[in-house]
C-alpha cells in the first residue's frame, strides 16, 4: 500500500460506517477500490459490474428510483460522500445517474472480508436503515440496563427495616394482625430448633392469606405454616441489587430473604427493586402531596431539571423520564389546585382541569412551558366565573414559579378563551374540525392532545369521545392537518446532508424539537384521530396503530413500529443534548449541531429523518 493513497483513505474514512475503522483496515479497503465515472442519464442495473457493490459517491448525484404500477418515484438520492448499497436494489428499483458522477466501488465480498472483525460495520452495510435504527434502539436499551441504578446498589442498601418474623405455630389471624400493626406485607415463618437455634421455614405474604386462606375459607385459627410459601431463597446483603432481580425473575418468586453473615437480615420484594429506579420521582411526588404552601412546591419544581439530568445520566430511557417529569408536573398542578381551593373555598359548580400538549402526552420535560385549560360545568351561572378566574391565575402563576413557564401562545386556563363551559368547548372543537382555518389547525395540535388532571373527569372524557367520533369521519379535517404538518420537515436535504439553520444565534444547527420530534408527534396524532384511538401519548398511539389486527388504510404496522424507534432515538438524543448543554453551562434548548454528535449518531439521525419523511410524504400523497 502506498501512503500516497492517503487522500483516498481519508475520503473513505469520512463515510460512516468506515469512520470507526483503524487505519490499516482502511488501507486494506482502499486497495480494493475501483474508481469509475458514470454520466447523467446512465442507468445502473443489477446486470452491471456494479452488482453486489458498495458505491461511495466522490462527486455527482445518483438517484434510486422505484417503479410500481408504472409509476416511477424517487426513493433516495445519493450525493457527495454518500454511501449507496447497491445490494438492496430489487427488481422494482433502479439506480440512475442524475449528475455525472465519480464513484468509488467496493465489492461487498472484499469489504466484508476486510471488516470481518467489526460486526457493527458489517451490520451497517447489510441491513436497511429501518432495521439499523431498530438495532440502535435495542443497544440503547441494553445500555440502560447496564447503567441501571440496580447495578450500582447493594441489596443491603435497599433494606430499611429488619425482617419481621412469626413462629410456625401461630395462627393466620395473629399473622395478619402483626403484619397490619407493622405495616409489612410479609412475615418470615420460624421454627424453634432445640433450645437456642431457630430456622426459617417459609414466608407468609398478604397474597398467601388472600389466596390460600380467605379464598379457600380456611378458619383464621389455622396455623400460619399451613399457608406459607415453603420455597425460600436467600441472597447476601452485599450482593448487587440487579442480581437479586435476576434471581427472582429466574425462580419466579417475589420475595427473597436477605442474609448478613448468614443471619436473617431482612426481606426484599421484587417491587422494592422495581421502584428503586423511580425512587427519586416517587419520593418527590410524596413531597408534593404533603406540601402545605406554594413555596414548598416551588422548591420541588426547581429541582426538576436536576432530577431529569440525573435520570439521563443514569441512562434511563427518555420516554420513562418524560413520564416521570410529566407525573411530577401533574402532581404539582393537582396540589396547586387543591391549595387554590383552600384559599378560595369550594368550587361553585363542577369543573375539570386538563393539560394539553406535551404534558398530556406524558412527554413533558423540565424546561417545557405550560399548556392547560379549564372546562366548567354547563350549570355554571355568570357570577361563578370569577371564582374560576381566580383559581386559574393561582395555578398558572404557581406553575410558572415552579419552572413551567407561562405558555408563549397563552394556551392557559388563565386566558378566558380557554376557561369555558363544556358547551363552549364542544363548539370550539366542532368549529375546528368542520372549518379548519390555519389558527384552528394550530389549536388542534395543542388541544387534541388532551388529558384530564383534576376535577370532574366526565367533562373531559365527553369531549374526547365527541372529538374522536367526528375526526374518524372527517377526511377533510385530517387532510388539512396532514398538509399543515408538512411545514415541519426533518432537516434532511434531499441529498448530501442535513439542512442547517443558516443564520442567527442558532446558525449551523438544527431544531430537534420542531423538525424531528414534532413531526412524529403530529403523525401519531393524525393516525389516532383518523383511527379513533383514545391514547394521548405518542408511543401509545403508535403502538395502538401497530396493534390494529386487520391492518388499516392509514399507515402500515411496520411504519408505525419504525416511527416508534425513530421517536425513542430522537427523545434520547434530545435528553443527551440537554445534559451536554447544561454540563457545559450553555442555555438549554433544542438546537443540535451535527458536529457535536458522533458520525454514527448522525447516520442514525438521518435514518430517523428518512422514516419521518417517508411517512410525511405518504400523508401528502393521500391528499
Amino acid at each position, binding site marked *: *500500500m*502506498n501512503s*500516497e*493513497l492517503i*487522500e*483516498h483513505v481519508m475520503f473513505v474514512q469520512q463515510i460512516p460506517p468506515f469512520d470507526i475503522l483503524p487505519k490499516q483496515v482502511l488501507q486494506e479497503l*482502499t*486497495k*480494493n*477500490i*475501483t*474508481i*469509475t*465515472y*458514470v*454520466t447523467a442519464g*446512465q442507468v445502473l442495473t443489477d446486470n452491471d*459490474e456494479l452488482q453486489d457493490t458498495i458505491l461511495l459517491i*466522490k*462527486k*455527482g448525484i445518483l438517484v434510486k428510483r422505484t417503479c410500481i404500477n408504472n409509476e416511477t418515484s424517487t426513493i433516495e438520492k445519493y450525493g457527495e460522500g454518500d454511501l449507496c448499497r447497491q445490494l438492496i436494489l430489487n427488481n422494482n428499483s433502479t439506480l440512475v445517474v442524475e449528475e*455525472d458522477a*465519480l464513484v468509488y*466501488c467496493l465489492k461487498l465480498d472484499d469489504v466484508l472480508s476486510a471488516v470481518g472483525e467489526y460486526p457493527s460495520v458489517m451490520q451497517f452495510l447489510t441491513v436497511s436503515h429501518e432495521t439499523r435504527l431498530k438495532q440502535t434502539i435495542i443497544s440503547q436499551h441494553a445500555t440502560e440496563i447496564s447503567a441501571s441504578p440496580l447495578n450500582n446498589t447493594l441489596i443491603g442498601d435497599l433494606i430499611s427495616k429488619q425482617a419481621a418474623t412469626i413462629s410456625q405455630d401461630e395462627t393466620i389471624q395473629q399473622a395478619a394482625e402483626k403484619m397490619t400493626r407493622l405495616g409489612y406485607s410479609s412475615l418470615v415463618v420460624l421454627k424453634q430448633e432445640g433450645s437456642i437455634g431457630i430456622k426459617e421455614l417459609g414466608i407468609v405474604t398478604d397474597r398467601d392469606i388472600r389466596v390460600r386462606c380467605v379464598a379457600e375459607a380456611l378458619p383464621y385459627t389455622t396455623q400460619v405454616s399451613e399457608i406459607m410459601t415453603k420455597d425460600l431463597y436467600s441472597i447476601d446483603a452485599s450482593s448487587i441489587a440487579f442480581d437479586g432481580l435476576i434471581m427472582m425473575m429466574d425462580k419466579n418468586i417475589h420475595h427473597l430473604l436477605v442474609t448478613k453473615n448468614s443471619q436473617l437480615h431482612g426481606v426484599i420484594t421484587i417491587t422494592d427493586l422495581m421502584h428503586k429506579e423511580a425512587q427519586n420521582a416517587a419520593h418527590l411526588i410524596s413531597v408534593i402531596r404533603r406540601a402545605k404552601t406554594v413555596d414548598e412546591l416551588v422548591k420541588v419544581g426547581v429541582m426538576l431539571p436536576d432530577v431529569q439530568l440525573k435520570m439521563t445520566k443514569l441512562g434511563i430511557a427518555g420516554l420513562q423520564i418524560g413520564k416521570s417529569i410529566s407525573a411530577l408536573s401533574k402532581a404539582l398542578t393537582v396540589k396547586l389546585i387543591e391549595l387554590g381551593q383552600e384559599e378560595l373555598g369550594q368550587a361553585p359548580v363542577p369543573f375539570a382541569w386538563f393539560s394539553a400538549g406535551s404534558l398530556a402526552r406524558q412527554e413533558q420535560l423540565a424546561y417545557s412551558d405550560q399548556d392547560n385549560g379549564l372546562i366548567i360545568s354547563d350549570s355554571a351561572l355568570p357570577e361563578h366565573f370569577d371564582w374560576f378566574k381566580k383559581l386559574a391565575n393561582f395555578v398558572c402563576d404557581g406553575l410558572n414559579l415552579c419552572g413551567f413557564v407561562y405558555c408563549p401562545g397563552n394556551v392557559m386556563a388563565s386566558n378566558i378563551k380557554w376557561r369555558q363551559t363544556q358547551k363552549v368547548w364542544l363548539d370550539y372543537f366542532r368549529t375546528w374540525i368542520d372549518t379548519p382555518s390555519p389558527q384552528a389547525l394550530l389549536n388542534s395540535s395543542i388541544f387534541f392532545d388532551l388529558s384530564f388532571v383534576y376535577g370532574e373527569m366526565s367533562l373531559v372524557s365527553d369531549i374526547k369521545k365527541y372529538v374522536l367520533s367526528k375526526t374518524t369521519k372527517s377526511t377533510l379535517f385530517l387532510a388539512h392537518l396532514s398538509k399543515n404538518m408538512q411545514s415541519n420537515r426533518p432537516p434532511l436535504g434531499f441529498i448530501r446532508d442535513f439542512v442547517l439553520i443558516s443564520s442567527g444565534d442558532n446558525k449551523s444547527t438544527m431544531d430537534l424539537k420542531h423538525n424531528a420530534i414534532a413531526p412524529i408527534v403530529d403523525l401519531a396524532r393524525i393516525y389516532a384521530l383518523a383511527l379513533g384511538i383514545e391514547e394521548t401519548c405518542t408511543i401509545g398511539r403508535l403502538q395502538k396503530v401497530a396493534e390494529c389486527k386487520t391492518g388499516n388504510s392509514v399507515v402500515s404496522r411496520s411504519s408505525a413500529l419504525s416511527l416508534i424507534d425513530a421517536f425513542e432515538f430522537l427523545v434520547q438524543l434530545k435528553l443527551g443534548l440537554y445534559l451536554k448543554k447544561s454540563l457545559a453551562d450553555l442555555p438549554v434548548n433544542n438546537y443540535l449541531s451535527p458536529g457535536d454528535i458522533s458520525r454514527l449518531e448522525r447516520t442514525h439521525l438521518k435514518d430517523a429523518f428518512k422514516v419521518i419523511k417517508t411517512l410525511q410524504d405518504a400523508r401528502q400523497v393521500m391528499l
Partner: protein
Amino acid sequence: MPLAWLLTPANRKYEKVRLSLLKRLPKDNGLYDFLSVPMPALNAQLSSVDIVSVDFETTGLNAEQDKLLSIGCVNMSHSQIQLGSSFHKIIAIDQALDADNVTIHTITDSECQSGSPLRQVMDEFLKLIAGKVMLVHFNKIEREFINEACIKLYGVAPVLPMIDTLVLANKAFNRRGLPFEPQDLTLANLRKRAKLPFYQQHHALSDAIATAELYLTMIDEKKASNMQLKDVLI
C-alpha cells in the same frame, strides 16, 4: 505557445517497430522482456484495452539535463481505475535538489536519498506497463524521460503507445470551436472544468490517478465501447 508538437502524428507503426527492436536486442537486455509483450491491436475496442495512467515528477523539463525524481502509476481496465494497482517510487539522484523545484514536487533531499536507484525503478516500472497503453497528461515529459532513461540504462529507446489527456482536450476544444488559453489545458484546470474534486497536485501517483479520472470524464465506458484504440492513440 505553439501547439504543433502536441499534434505529432500517431505512432501507428509501433507494433512493427517493437518486433524489429526485439530482433536486434540480446535477451539479457533490460528492455527485452518489455518489448516481448505484444501491444494491444490498433483496432481493439477502446474499452477493452488495458491502460496504465502514468505521471513523473522531475527536476526540470529538459530530459537531457534534468533528472527523473519519482514515478507513479495506476491501472485502468474496463473504464475502472484500480486503486489496488497503485505504484509509486522515488528515485535516488546524486545531486542536490533545487529549492524552487522542491516547492513544486515536495520531494525533499532526504526523501530523494532514501529512494531507489534509477535502474531498479525503471525495471519494475517497465514490467508493470508492458503490453498496456500509457495514459499521460502532456506526453512530451513522460516520453522523453523514458527514452532518455532507457538509452542510458539499456542503450535503446522503446516504442511507447500513449494516450494524452491534454491532446484529447485540445482536440475537443478545437472541435467545438471553443476559444481557450494554454493554461486551460493544465490537468488541474481541465479537472475543474469537468467538475472533478480537488486533489494534491504534483505528486506522481496522485497526478496519475487524477489523469485517469479526467480521462474517464472525457471517454466514459459507453464512448469507449464505440471507439477503437487508434482513435485516441498518439
